[in-house]
């Protein structure tokens, strides 16, 4: 029983990271109807910003950790908005395939620029938050895991607030539903799209930091696998659906952790794609996605 709970805890903390990345995929899909493949590399850049800023602040302090987290989120928000401005905005109105191919191009650009600037060799991520393990009723909980769950929950509550309680969030939902109608009430869609990229990229950066805390070896290609899995999580929850992305992430992380702890651990990466195939076959709109019916 305690092993089950332990695995569940590990799974949820991995899933929370997938969820943070998946939110960015799903929000961008919501407003632009394409998959931003460069998103997983923004996650990687987030971890590297954390690595360099982490050298400037004392290790193992709460305030130092917070500074690293915020610096990385701000840095990646700017990066995400810059990518949108330079690579995607000129293609507004072009076929989705063109944008999709551009996204793959941006992804490769970030990965191999990363190898040029950061080097291809893995680096060890500093222990930015205070580190300790404590056991509760047979469960071993590390502060890193707690940080993951705490930060992820707070960010998701914050996101929920932005999307459902603010003017720009309502505009995001409006643009996602009907970009033309949004323009006709006076929304500048470019501003909303830019904001969406910034928001999604900041969440990916937080995901990058939290991932690096628990798997402290970082390199320029580290985003590929978590990025793909987060993409699966977004599809699993229903692409374009924000609560769906969070749910998809948690499910995927948990399933992967349980498979990893079983005799089939070799297949821990395969399981994500098996889930993708099954969901596309049986429920292509995802768990929380629905085919909307418009009344005329």
């Amino acid at each position, binding site marked *: 029983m305690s092993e089950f709970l332990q695995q569940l805890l590990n799974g949820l903390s991995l899933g929370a990271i997938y969820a943070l990345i998946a939110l960015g995929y799903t929000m961008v899909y919501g407003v632009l109807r394409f998959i931003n493949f460069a998103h997983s590399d923004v996650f990687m850049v987030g971890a590297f910003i954390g690595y360099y800023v982490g050298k400037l602040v004392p290790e193992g302090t709460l305030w130092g950790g917070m500074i690293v987290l915020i610096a990385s989120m701000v840095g990646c928000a700017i990066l995400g908005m810059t990518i949108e401005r330079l690579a995607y905005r000129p293609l507004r109105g072009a076929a989705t395939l063109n944008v999709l191919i551009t996204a793959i191009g941006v992804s490769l650009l970030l990965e191999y620029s990363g190898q040029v600037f950061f080097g291809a060799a893995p680096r060890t991520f500093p222990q930015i938050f205070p580190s300790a393990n404590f056991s509760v009723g047979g469960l071993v909980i590390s502060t890193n895991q707690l940080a993951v769950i705490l930060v992820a929950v707070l960010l998701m509550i914050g996101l929920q607030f932005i999307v459902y309680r603010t003017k720009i969030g309502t505009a995001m939902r409006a643009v996602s539903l009907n970009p033309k109608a949004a323009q006709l009430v006076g929304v500048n869609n470019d501003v909303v799209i830019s904001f969406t990229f910034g928001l999604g990229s900041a969440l990916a950066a937080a995901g990058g930091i939290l991932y690096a805390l628990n798997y402290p070896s970082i390199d320029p290609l580290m985003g590929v696998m978590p990025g793909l899995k987060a993409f699966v999580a977004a599809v699993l929850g229903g692409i374009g659906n924000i609560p769906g992305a969070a749910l998809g992430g948690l499910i995927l992380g948990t399933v992967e952790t349980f498979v990893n702890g079983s005799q089939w651990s070799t297949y821990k990466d395969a399981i994500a794609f098996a889930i993708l195939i099954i969901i596309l076959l049986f429920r292509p709109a995802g768990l929380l996605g629905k085919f909307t019916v418009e009344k*005329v």
Partner: protein
Amino acid sequence: MLSVSDLQVSYGAISALGGISFKIEQGSIVTLIGGNGAGKTTTLRTISGLLRAKTGKIEFLGEDITALAPHKIVARGLCHVPEGRMIFSNLTVDENLAMGAYLQTDAALIAKNRDYVFSIFPRLKERLKQTAGTLSGGEQQMLAIGRALMSNPKFLMLDEPSLGIAPRLISTIFEKIVEINKHHGITILLVEQNANLALEVSSYAYVLETGRIVMEGESKKLRADPQLKATYLGG
């Protein structure tokens, strides 16, 4: 108030508007009638900035707005209620109205416009927390007009407000359109396939046929025109 001169618009190689010109005086209701594919919706979409003109000029309140982005045109007080209503179906009625006031910053004015919307469409007030997609067709049209009124417009363009609405609601909605014009002084450009109805409420009309204006005049006179009667008014 609005002046369109030699407007040409095309979709790729296909010409949709072949150089139309018209003027709309402040405080009037003007209608644009014509059959399917005549270019009525294209005209409205080009004025509101959703489509780009190939040549020609659109002036609003004496200023050139031909190349402006849609949100900048809304900011000047020209609001377009599109064909098919295009309400935000997954947002509540309340949120739809709030989106209508997206560019408004004066809270007192927003509250005043909201009260005005509720005074002409009391049904919307009853359904404030309801998801807009669950409203009936007529209620959705009320919401679309209400949302446009929230932008505090000087000029309203309505595209087929009678489309897909229960006949009994059509007359209500047209009464409200006249009321908005009379009591609020909002100039209206009305596009309709139901030419009888459109000529009844408007003071001046333009008849559009395959991208050209083929006839214009006072609505009263056009209603009596034998040629127009035969083509659009069912004998």
